[in-house]
């Protein structure tokens, strides 16, 4: 089926590398808008298109070659000072990068791309000829003929490059159609060309800019696929710094040596030697192994870490296009691009961050008039920041816009039937802000095209939670809103709390655990037939783990673990707990019992199931809760 039989590897390499290149070109274009005469930028952008063209040629992607060639020619003239960057030219260029990205998408699906839109090609040709701007017709630029490929026979004389020319002219054929001079005939075709992103819906802008994955379709909050599903069809290769690989190699060598030491000690001990020296040596060797293994673990983990800058690169262009389509002026400021995040996580963060940025641009940031009226600079700033805090990565999307009105949010949520009046009355500011993350919430009466359908923000939350992260909102009226995403450093190691039901241990993600409480039967109240407990004024349902698993409860649960999930908090009632562990998650291939996220091995060698709390809760939804009697000693006896 593929147009690239036998070239798949090459194609993958090309797409990864050229994709990065295009993202950096996109960013440089945003910069170029601010400093249109910056020679270095023009040069780098020129080289970007040039390089993509070169690679595309080997893939026989002629349409991509044609488009890059035209754009490259345009930049050649721009960098030589023969043309000026005008708004019209800028728009044509922006469209060209969009089109290049579309072509990458079809390449990714193994299909040769369709030709670029004829208006775009025509506009580029006009731009090269210096006549894209109707008003400005720089005579000097118009006079200078655009570069024509040298398929012409060389003039006589000079060094022996005649032979060279001959060799060249065979391969130049492939390029001939790619380099038509800006013909006057192109003019009528371009007449109807509207080089502006406003013609495109913001959805298109995002699709263009992000490319491949459109998983989180609006209106389908459940569309977020499981990790395993989404793993397929995405780029499974990773670029690792050789220094890091060497470290892994080095450590595994050291571990080999320590293993040898242990083997010899074992035979000593088996032969009856147990003097202090031998035992001391054993102690040392085990201690060393311990150290080496944890070093190796972190070294291996580091090979999965990628600078978040690769992800951030995509966004300035998206923000710019969105802002323009809304008639706003927004600058996206990137901070902490060197922060490293697990590769899988980077990919899963791409969509949520887009939602947050477009939310900031659409809802957060005011119109230029309004900003002027309130004494703010017309151009607003949206800051996208990443940093590491302890064993967490923190991502911020902050705008300097109008901020959120807690009162209005609550009123809206009540009106939409998302919360009750009573609930609204007990909510503090932070809880009110978090309402925007509920499915079906939208504060605009008329949904705007960009982010007003109240979908997306709940998907953001779902996706962040899938990564074992949390999302929080800070906002100040008139000053702006900040979304704070907190993520674990890696998905490979999950800190868990090991809880026990009878003798059987289970692991629950520590990120969901808020605290552990002793369960006192007298503190349990029954509300609406369900056992609840009041913790610092908050009424929380008590759910015994045995009940969630469908087991019988031998004794009344002795401890409660206060769990916080996306939707709610509750107390997980258990018999006892065994402490916390850093679990290395092993997924159960082809076999996934309901409510089990994976398995791990404890330090004592015991195998433990890691529970998927959300799934367990879903399985009992509708009949949430158990009567108080479960927690009474006599009830347990009779159970």
């Amino acid at each position, binding site marked *: 089926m593929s147009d690239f039989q036998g070239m798949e590897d*090459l194609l993958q*390499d*090309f797409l990864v*590398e*050229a994709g990065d*290149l295009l993202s950096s070109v996109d960013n440089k274009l945003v910069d170029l808008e601010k400093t249109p005469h910056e020679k270095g930028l023009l040069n*780098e952008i020129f*080289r970007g298109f*040039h*390089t993509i*063209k*070169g*690679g595309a*040629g*080997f893939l*026989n992607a002629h349409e991509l070659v044609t488009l890059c060639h035209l754009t490259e020619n345009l930049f050649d003239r721009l960098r030589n000072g023969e043309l000026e960057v005008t708004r019209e030219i800028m728009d044509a260029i922006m469209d060209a990068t969009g089109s290049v990205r579309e072509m990458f998408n079809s390449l990714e699906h193994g299909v040769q791309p369709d030709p670029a839109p004829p208006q775009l090609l025509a506009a580029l040709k006009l731009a090269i000829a210096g006549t894209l701007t109707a008003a400005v017709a720089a005579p000097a630029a118009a006079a200078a003929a655009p*570069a024509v*490929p*040298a*398929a*012409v026979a*060389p003039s006589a004389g*000079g*060094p*022996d*490059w005649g*032979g*060279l*020319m001959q*060799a*060249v*002219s*065979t*391969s*130049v054929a*492939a*390029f001939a159609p790619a380099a038509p001079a800006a013909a006057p005939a192109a003019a009528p075709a371009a007449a109807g060309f509207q080089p502006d992103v406003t013609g495109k819906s913001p959805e298109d802008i995002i699709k263009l800019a992000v490319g491949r994955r459109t998983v989180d379709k609006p209106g389908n909050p459940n569309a977020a696929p499981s990790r395993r599903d989404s793993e397929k069809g995405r780029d499974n290769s990773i670029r690792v710094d050789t220094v890091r690989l060497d470290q892994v190699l080095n450590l595994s060598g050291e571990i080999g040596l320590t293993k040898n030491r242990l083997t010899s000690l074992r035979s000593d001990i088996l032969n009856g030697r147990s003097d202090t020296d031998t035992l001391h040596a054993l102690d040392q060797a085990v201690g060393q192994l311990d150290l080496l293994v944890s070093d190796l673990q972190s070294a291996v983990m580091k090979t999965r870490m990628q600078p978040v800058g690769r992800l951030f690169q995509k966004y300035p262009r998206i923000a710019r296009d969105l802002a323009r389509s809304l008639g706003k002026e927004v600058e996206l400021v990137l901070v902490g691009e060197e922060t490293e995040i697990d590769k899988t996580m980077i990919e899963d963060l791409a969509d949520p961050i887009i939602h947050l940025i477009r939310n900031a641009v659409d809802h957060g940031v005011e119109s230029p008039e309004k900003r002027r009226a309130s004494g703010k600079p017309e151009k607003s700033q949206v800051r996208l920041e990443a940093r590491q805090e302890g064993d967490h990565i923190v991502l911020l999307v902050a705008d300097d816009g109008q901020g959120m009105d807690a009162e209005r949010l609550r009123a809206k949520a009540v009106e939409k039937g998302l919360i009750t009046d009573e609930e609204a009355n007990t909510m503090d500011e932070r809880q009110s802000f978090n309402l925007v993350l509920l499915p079906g919430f939208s504060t605009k009466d008329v949904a705007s095209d960009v982010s007003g359908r109240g979908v997306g923000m709940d998907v953001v939350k779902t996706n962040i939670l899938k990564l074992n992260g949390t999302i929080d909102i800070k906002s100040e009226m008139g000053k702006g809103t900040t979304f704070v995403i907190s993520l674990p450093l890696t998905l490979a190691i999950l800190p868990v709390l090991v809880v026990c039901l009878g003798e059987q241990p289970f692991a629950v993600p520590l990120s969901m655990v808020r605290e552990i409480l002793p369960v006192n039967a007298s503190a349990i109240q029954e509300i609406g037939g369900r056992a609840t407990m009041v913790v610092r004024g908050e009424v929380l349902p008590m759910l015994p783990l045995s009940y969630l698993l469908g087991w019988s409860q031998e004794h009344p649960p002795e401890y409660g673990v206060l769990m916080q999930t996306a939707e709610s908090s509750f107390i997980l009632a258990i018999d006892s707990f065994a402490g916390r562990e850093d679990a290395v998650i092993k997924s159960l291939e082809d076999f996934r019992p309901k409510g089990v996220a994976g398995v791990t091995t404890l330090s004592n060698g015991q195998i433990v199931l890691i529970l998927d709390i959300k799934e367990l809760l879903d399985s009992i939804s509708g009949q949430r809760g158990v009567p108080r009697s479960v927690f009474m000693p006599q009830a347990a006896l009779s159970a």
Partner: protein
Amino acid sequence: MLDPSKIKFLVVDDFSTMRRIVRNLLKELGYVHVDEAEDGAIALQKLRSGEFDFVVSDWNMPNMDGLQLLQAVRADPGLRHLPVLMITAEAKKENIIAAAQAGAHGYIVKPFTAATLNDKLAKIFDKLEQAAAA
């Protein structure tokens, strides 16, 4: 004819996909001894410290481009004998003249096939042998 497996190539390009393409094409032709450099400056360093027999260089690169590399190679008494094949996406007349004047042994335009590359290499080796015989 020289033994292809003994000839050590240096492929210079800032785009790693392109380096891989060239490396694969060379391998197809039996030239298995290939090292890579990301730009002219790194290439020059490698050339000065390693035993290379042949340079295949892209033209358009950051830091030091292919033409500057070529000029530097020709200006270095230890390297000036090295055959240099220039690769570029452009078939512009002035580029070819510039390359020829700077002392390139050959010039090849992207995209090319293994056969085209082989032709070019064969021509360069022929020329080198003739020069050696003369």
